[in-house]
């Protein structure tokens, strides 16, 4: 195994183990901080896949933005509320969990099916890209590539997202205004 593979398995393990902890723990605040580790391991995996721009964007948006905002909401809610949520008793198998179990099980079936049917070493589109040299090398610059593609090939989705964000901003401004008469 070379260094890249060792790093891949290490970060994959950290990502999955911390994600399991996030889902399983009763201590909600700790699970948020554990989610931070999951996101970091994911960023590392992105770097290994030569998507360094995506990796850093993930840290800026998820760690610096979303995670901090979630924590903010937690801190406004107080420790007692959090403890009552944490103490909700739940059996491992109950009728409430049936939809979730069903969904997870079906998803597992789909994933396993994919893994067994897919011949990952001989994918058609990968071979084609190798022949035509249409691929990213470790020393090629990613930012220009992403910028040019966003402004040409993917302009419509890009603009649609910006309109969506604008709508969200207007909505947030409307909700936070002091209501004159409800």
């Amino acid at each position: 195994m070379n260094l890249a593979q060792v790093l891949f398995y290490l970060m994959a393990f950290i990502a999955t183990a911390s994600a399991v902890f996030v889902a399983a723990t009763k201590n909600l605040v700790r699970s948020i901080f554990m989610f931070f580790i999951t996101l970091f391991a994911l960023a590392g995996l992105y770097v290994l896949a030569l998507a360094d721009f995506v990796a850093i964007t993930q840290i800026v948006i998820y760690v610096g933005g979303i995670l901090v905002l979630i924590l903010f909401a937690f801190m406004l809610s107080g420790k007692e509320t959090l403890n009552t949520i944490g103490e909700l008793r739940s059996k491992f198998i109950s009728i409430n969990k049936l939809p979730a179990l069903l969904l997870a099980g079906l998803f597992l079936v789909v994933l396993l099916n994919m893994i067994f049917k897919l011949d990952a070493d001989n994918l058609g589109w990968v071979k084609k890209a190798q022949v035509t040299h249409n691929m990213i090398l470790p020393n090629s610059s990613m930012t220009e590539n992403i910028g040019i593609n966003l402004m040409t090939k993917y302009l419509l989705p890009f603009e649609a997202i910006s309109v969506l964000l604008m709508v969200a901003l207007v909505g947030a401004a409307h909700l936070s205004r002091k209501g004159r008469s409800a």
Partner: protein
Amino acid sequence: MNFYITYFIIAIGLFGFSALFALFGVYAERKVSAFIQDRLGPTETGKYGSLQTFADILKMLQKELITPAAADKLLFILAPAIIFIAVYLGFAALPWGPGLVPAKLNLGLYYVFAIISIETLGILMAGWGSNNKFAILGAMRSAAQIISYEIPAGFAIISVVMIAQTLNLQDIAAQQGILANETTKFAGFWDVSSIGGFFAWNVFRAPHLLVAFVIYFIASLAESNRAPFDIPEAESELVAGFHTEYTGLRFALVFLAEYSMMFLVSMVGVILFLGAWNTPLPNIGPVHLATWTTGAGWGIIWIAIKTLTLVGIQMWIRWTLPRFRVDQLMTLCWKVLTPLAFACMLISGVWRLWLM
């Protein structure tokens, strides 16, 4: 294998530098504050009190590490480490001279911007872990402030990136002097590619960046929780904010992070706006001052002088201006700095298209 050893040496060197700088910074802060308030400051320990911070750090090392009984122990212990590591990681991408950069990242600037934002998480961790109302109030104020001020700082940075056309900090640095590959124009009309000096700095290449620099500087004060934006640790109302419960070495780590952060944000400001490691002296006719004073050694000297000047201005501001109230702080950020930063970004685009 050799370059791994070099990496370790550089990493340890940077750590040693930030620790030394914190020692020097605390001493300087005391002397500067004493001068501004017409006092003497530390005088007893060593000549002119110069050993005062060493004595302080010795005292802190000996102190007991107290963990409050009701604290979330894991978060409480980990928080100072995360706060410091977030700042320390930022140093990895900063260039010190031509060819002297710990990690040549083509996304260097974006990386520094991202890694600094992790500090917020450490502060929230400390606030929550302490299980203390002052700590949690301080942490929440700090988070609100840092998230808000990231926006004007980000747009001020983007207006530089639009002029520089790269996120690589070393390339941004090289553009602002006689080592530039492209033609550099002072204020958009006078070709200074071979003259260099302060004429080629970003703030003079495109004068609207002067406004962007001021915006960035104000925002960087807020991001490093320095006065007049130090409401997270407002001692008159919150005891000491998010680090109320910390003692001994952990408290020292929080302070180390604060002073490293001051140096880091100043250094990023110098690299982006004030010519990085380039000399301020221009070539005048046959007197090639810029050529004589450019090089790896000179680079370190220039960037250190410029950065320390900015750190000095941070201290000067801290001991001159009173603390902002929360609403004033938010008004300044959202109603003054953010629109101005947007305007800077717009002018940058126009400038790049028509004047460069």
